[in-house]
């Protein structure tokens, strides 16, 4: 048995024949062309061919994947026909004596560079499109067929990584799973796999071996394991796991399209916690009602320097647009404590969890906060957004943040930049202070969200990172649950809404209690939406309400 450990990118177990997706590398012979006229004619022919191919692909994409996918190919078509690209190729052929291949290669590199140097991240990403078009032209010149999957039976597709245009061209009914040697869990292939709901493993080093072609392979997209020639015990274990998953999938399938409604007719919002746009296909597939928590710090953690206003704006806008008018709650920068970045050069603290984190940092460094607020308000014009402030313990902190928001709004208005004037401003309940002050805070903020991980850690004085405190770190502790109950009561008294976005939101042992408290929204990771829906639909909130709240005691 050969086992390869990759990174699980889309859960599920599957078994099938391994198929190597070959993409012929485009070798460039930088020949001195004998006849520039003939080279130019070759280029023109290749260009016409590419244009026709792309038009056909756009048509196919429109039928199978929708307008957005079709637009990608129409843009590629215009790129292939671009007059500047043509001029550059012509110059290189006529003046530098290059052959068509060399001229196309040098030209597409030149224009890739041009896009890579642009300021806007959207424009920088267009370099990949130029590269894609360049490769197509080179393939045509070399007489190669674009890599395609023409198979009679379904396979486990193995490749280094797939370009966007390649994944659209694949006949998806013939793919059981993806395994890529390169890539990450946020790469295009991984996202596609999650959207399609098929298993995927990325970073599976050593999988691209010609000898493996056609062999039976087991893929576990959860653990990231790939097995060739699986032995009997492994095979039995994986098949059993597959059966369990299928049974669960069937159960969840039944819940699709149904409302999150209790037996007595109460509707509950079930939204999703996400870190970036790569999670959105899963939100849609699992029917999340919206985004209950977008952790904006990922933007800051991924980069070597502070993300610019433009970068942040593009990031938020992309998510808001994709959510098509559903509410997206964006939490402002929550750096500090267990999440540190070097470039902010924060002084080391004795006790970072009780230190300069989240809103405290933002109010101490308004320069930093302003950039994020400007980006957020600019993006607010592109969808339905709410802003959530982390680690508020005093009303004055909320007021200081609100003042900054007003200043930023006034700035944007003066510059004529559109924004939503009614973006709700909310507060995280994640400290005992916020829970005890909920009465005062409820008169200020528009909505609330309970961060149960921090609330547990601060209420119980238990470091959540510590491995030895497990039996003391008890999120079901009455002290934690009473905090939530108290906050919910005062918040509802002022007609505001309260959600839970921490781990506990998905804890089905507590769902009935949360509904008894009147919690309005539960925000969980996308794969928990449907199981939670199942629980909600089995609860009658009239039955045990009094008893549950009595037991909690307050």
């Amino acid at each position, binding site marked *: 048995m050969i086992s390869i450990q990759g990174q699980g990118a889309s859960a599920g177990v599957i078994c099938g024949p391994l198929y190597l997706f070959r993409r012929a590398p485009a070798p460039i012979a930088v020949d001195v062309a004998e006849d520039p006229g003939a080279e130019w004619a070759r280029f023109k022919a290749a260009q016409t061919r590419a244009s026709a191919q792309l038009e056909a692909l756009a048509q196919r994409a429109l039928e199978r994947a929708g307008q957005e996918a079709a637009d990608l190919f129409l843009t590629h078509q*215009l790129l292939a026909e*671009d007059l500047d690209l043509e001029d550059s190729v012509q110059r290189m052929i006529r003046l530098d004596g290059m052959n068509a291949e060399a001229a196309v290669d040098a030209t597409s590199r030149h224009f890739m560079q041009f896009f890579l140097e642009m300021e806007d991240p959207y424009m920088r990403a267009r370099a990949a499109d130029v590269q894609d078009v360049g490769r197509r032209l080179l393939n045509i010149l070399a007489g190669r067929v674009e890599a395609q999957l023409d198979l009679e039976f379904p396979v486990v597709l193995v490749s280094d990584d797939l370009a966007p245009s390649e994944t659209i061209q694949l006949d998806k009914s013939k793919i059981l799973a993806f395994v890529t040697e390169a890539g990450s869990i946020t790469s295009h292939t991984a996202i596609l796999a999650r959207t399609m709901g098929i298993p995927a493993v990325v970073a599976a080093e050593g999988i691209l071996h010609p000898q493996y072609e056609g062999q039976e392979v087991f893929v576990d997209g959860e653990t990231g394991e790939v097995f060739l020639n699986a032995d009997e015990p492994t095979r039995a274990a994986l098949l059993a796991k597959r059966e369990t998953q299928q049974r669960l999938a069937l159960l969840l399938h039944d819940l699709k399209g149904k409302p999150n409604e209790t037996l007595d007719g109460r509707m509950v919002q079930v939204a999703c916690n996400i870190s970036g746009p790569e999670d959105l296909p899963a939100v849609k597939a699992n029917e999340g009602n919206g985004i209950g928590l977008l952790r904006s710090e990922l933007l800051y953690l991924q980069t070597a320097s502070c993300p610019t206003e433009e970068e942040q704006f593009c990031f938020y806008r992309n998510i808001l647009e994709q959510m098509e008018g559903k509410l997206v709650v964006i939490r402002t920068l929550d750096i500090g404590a267990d999440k540190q970045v070097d470039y902010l050069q924060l002084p080391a603290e004795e006790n970072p969890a009780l230190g300069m984190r989240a809103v405290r940092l933002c109010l101490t460094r308004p320069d930093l906060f302003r950039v994020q607020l400007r980006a957020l308000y600019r993006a607010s014009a592109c969808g339905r957004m709410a802003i959530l402030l982390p680690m508020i313990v005093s009303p004055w902190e909320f007021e200081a943040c609100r003042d900054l928001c007003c200043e930023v709004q006034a700035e944007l208005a003066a510059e004529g930049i*559109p924004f939503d004037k009614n973006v709700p401003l909310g507060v995280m309940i994640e400290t005992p202070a916020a829970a005890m002050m909920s009465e005062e805070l409820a008169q200020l903020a528009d909505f609330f969200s309970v961060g149960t991980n921090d609330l547990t850690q601060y209420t119980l004085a238990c470091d959540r990172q510590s491995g030895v405190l497990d039996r003391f770190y008890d999120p079901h502790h009455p002290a934690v649950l009473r905090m939530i109950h108290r906050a919910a009561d005062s918040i509802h008294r002022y007609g505001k809404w309260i959600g839970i976005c921490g781990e506990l939101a998905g804890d089905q042992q507590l769902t009935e209690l949360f509904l008894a408290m009147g919690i309005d929204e539960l925000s969980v990771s996308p794969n928990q939406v449907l199981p939670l829906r199942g629980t909600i639909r089995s609860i009658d909130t009239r039955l045990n309400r009094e008893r549950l709240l009595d037991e909690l005691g307050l």
Partner: protein
Amino acid sequence: MKQFTYTITDPIGLHARPAGFLLRKAKAYQSTILVQAPNGRTANALKLMALMGMGAKVNEELVFTVEGEDEEKAAAELAAYLPEIL
């Protein structure tokens, strides 16, 4: 020569999609259509990469210069078409 201005309302600015629509529209006329962004960059409306490369953003004002036999018609139709795409 005809000249008119248009202020971009698309939040992403002059990106691939509207640039493509503009180019296809511009092809229908004899006239040369030049587009200038506030940063001084100018592009021929028949050149996709040049249009995108201007880096024109939302709320920026583009200056369109149309010159040729059908400039009257081209400028009028283009000015009417832009709000649909950009």
